[in-house]
């Protein structure tokens, strides 16, 4: 439980630091108090539903990107906001009186899944900043249509 509480506290702090560093690196000093506000919202709004906090944090990160902040700061910022959101839900799901054995087993499985999802995605997204791909619009539409039409087959394959 201690790890869970620690991570729940650390993720919004790390998110706010990343956002503040991103804004500061672009010289957008107005964004620094905005990042502090993000942390304050996570900290003081612990009892609120975490989804608005996630949307707020991602919006701040997206605005920073548009304003010229470095994606290498903003991407981890948004990802850490997602981790914080996940931990907030996870904490309320487990509660405080879960048997220790069950709790540690569930936690191990959960953290492994979160790490499996976020770490490679963050690395790929960071690498993507250095990739420059030009895809024609027609090809893009064709790929999107194929994905849409094949979605149920993919779903069936995954479930099967």
């Amino acid at each position: 439980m201690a790890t869970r509480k620690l991570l729940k506290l650390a993720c919004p702090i790390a998110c706010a630091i990343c956002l503040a560093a991103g804004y500061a690196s672009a010289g957008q000093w107005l964004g620094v108090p905005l990042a502090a506000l993000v942390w304050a919202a996570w900290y003081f709004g612990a009892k609120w539903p975490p989804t608005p906090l996630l949307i707020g944090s991602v919006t701040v990160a997206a605005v920073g990107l548009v304003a010229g902040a470095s994606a290498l700061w903003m991407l981890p910022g948004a990802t850490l906001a997602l981790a914080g959101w996940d931990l907030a839900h996870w904490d309320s799901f487990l509660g405080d009186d879960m048997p220790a054995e069950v709790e540690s087993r569930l936690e191990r499985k959960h953290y492994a899944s979160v790490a499996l999802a976020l770490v490679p995605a963050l690395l790929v997204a960071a690498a993507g900043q250095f990739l420059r791909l030009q895809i024609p619009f027609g090809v893009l539409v064709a790929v999107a249509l194929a994905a849409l039409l094949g979605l149920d087959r993919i779903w069936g394959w995954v479930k099967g």
Partner: protein
Amino acid sequence: MNSRALALILVIFGLLLAALLVHQGALAWMALPFLAYLGVGVVQAPARSNIRLRAARSVELRRGQGDTSVDVVVTVENQGAAIDHLSLSEPLQTGARLLTGRLHQAAALLPGEETKLNYTFQTVRGTFTWKEIRAVASDSLGLIETEMKLPAEARVEVTPELRRYRPFPLQAQRTLPSTGSIPARRGGSGTNFWGVREYHPGDPLRRLDWRLTARHPRQFFTKEFEQEAIADVGLIVDARGKTNLRRGEDCLFDHLARATAALSEVFLRQGNRVSMLVWGEPLITVFPGYGKVQLNRILRALANSSPASDGSLDDLHFVPVQMFPSHSLIVVLSPLASNDGQLFPRLRAYGYQVLLICPDPFDFAQIALSGDQPTQLATRLARLERQVELAKVARLWIPVIDWRVSQPLSPLVRQALGRAHRQLKR
């Protein structure tokens, strides 16, 4: 898919839309961790066909002082593929107060493993029925959920607390032709002297009145004793929503139910034939009967009844009194609302002997009432109105017990019946 997954989709689409609008690829890349998170959830979600869970419920009842605690254990066994994230939950039933444990249990189950949802609740009375338990299996991120209702049936009846009163000195207008404890006002075998009559062949010799016989030559006299028989007792319990008051977890009807249980127990122990009508929604009737079986019927009926409001049953005037045998002793247990007084002339007109036990709703609600002047004035007026109603009932030669539920009822009933007996004698 739950609200969390929908929130993620919203963020992903928002970022992609923003990327298109501002022509910035970095925004689209920002959606990737969200997409991966959602993707892991989708991939890990268990297929419905692979989920095979079996639930079994055991319920144990423990009686305490004044209330009962019920231990509920639901065991869920995984007979299918591994489930990363299983959530079991069920609502707390009406009239129950959670003592220990939780109504929600999370678990991760490998094939063949089992988990238990264990809790204890406290209650004073009621019938509790469970049919199923809600189980939600999902991926370890809790995004794609499969909800199931697992059959786990159980039923438990918690009857009201049964207080044992000493037998009451009942004086019934009419008794039944069976030996009991109520003076029948006719000669026969008993303990109290009733009178002397001329000897009839077959009278036992030990009953001969030798002194009188000695004074009258060639004539014999037999002593008679007052027969002791049983009577018909009917109980009318008011379970209307409008007369039931609730003070936190305590409700006035629970006091009425306890009083009814105790009275029916003592009347049945005295050998009487007892019937009961619970006037509420649903209308519950227990037809006349004797002994422990009848007591169980009454207790079960009281456990099943709960105060409820229904327009058609709002007026006590329409109580079907014909279900009670004629000349029964009818005990009405009701806090009485306005116009309820109409029932009593009707009962007297049918020839019933009536006793009214009227719990004081103002005394019950005293703690909840604010001390400001308008409330105090309104309470005083309502109290006066109630006293007028009770006085009207008392004028019909009906003993009225104005019962503060914090007081013991037994001495009040004894006193009221004694008073009625003295009035009858006069």
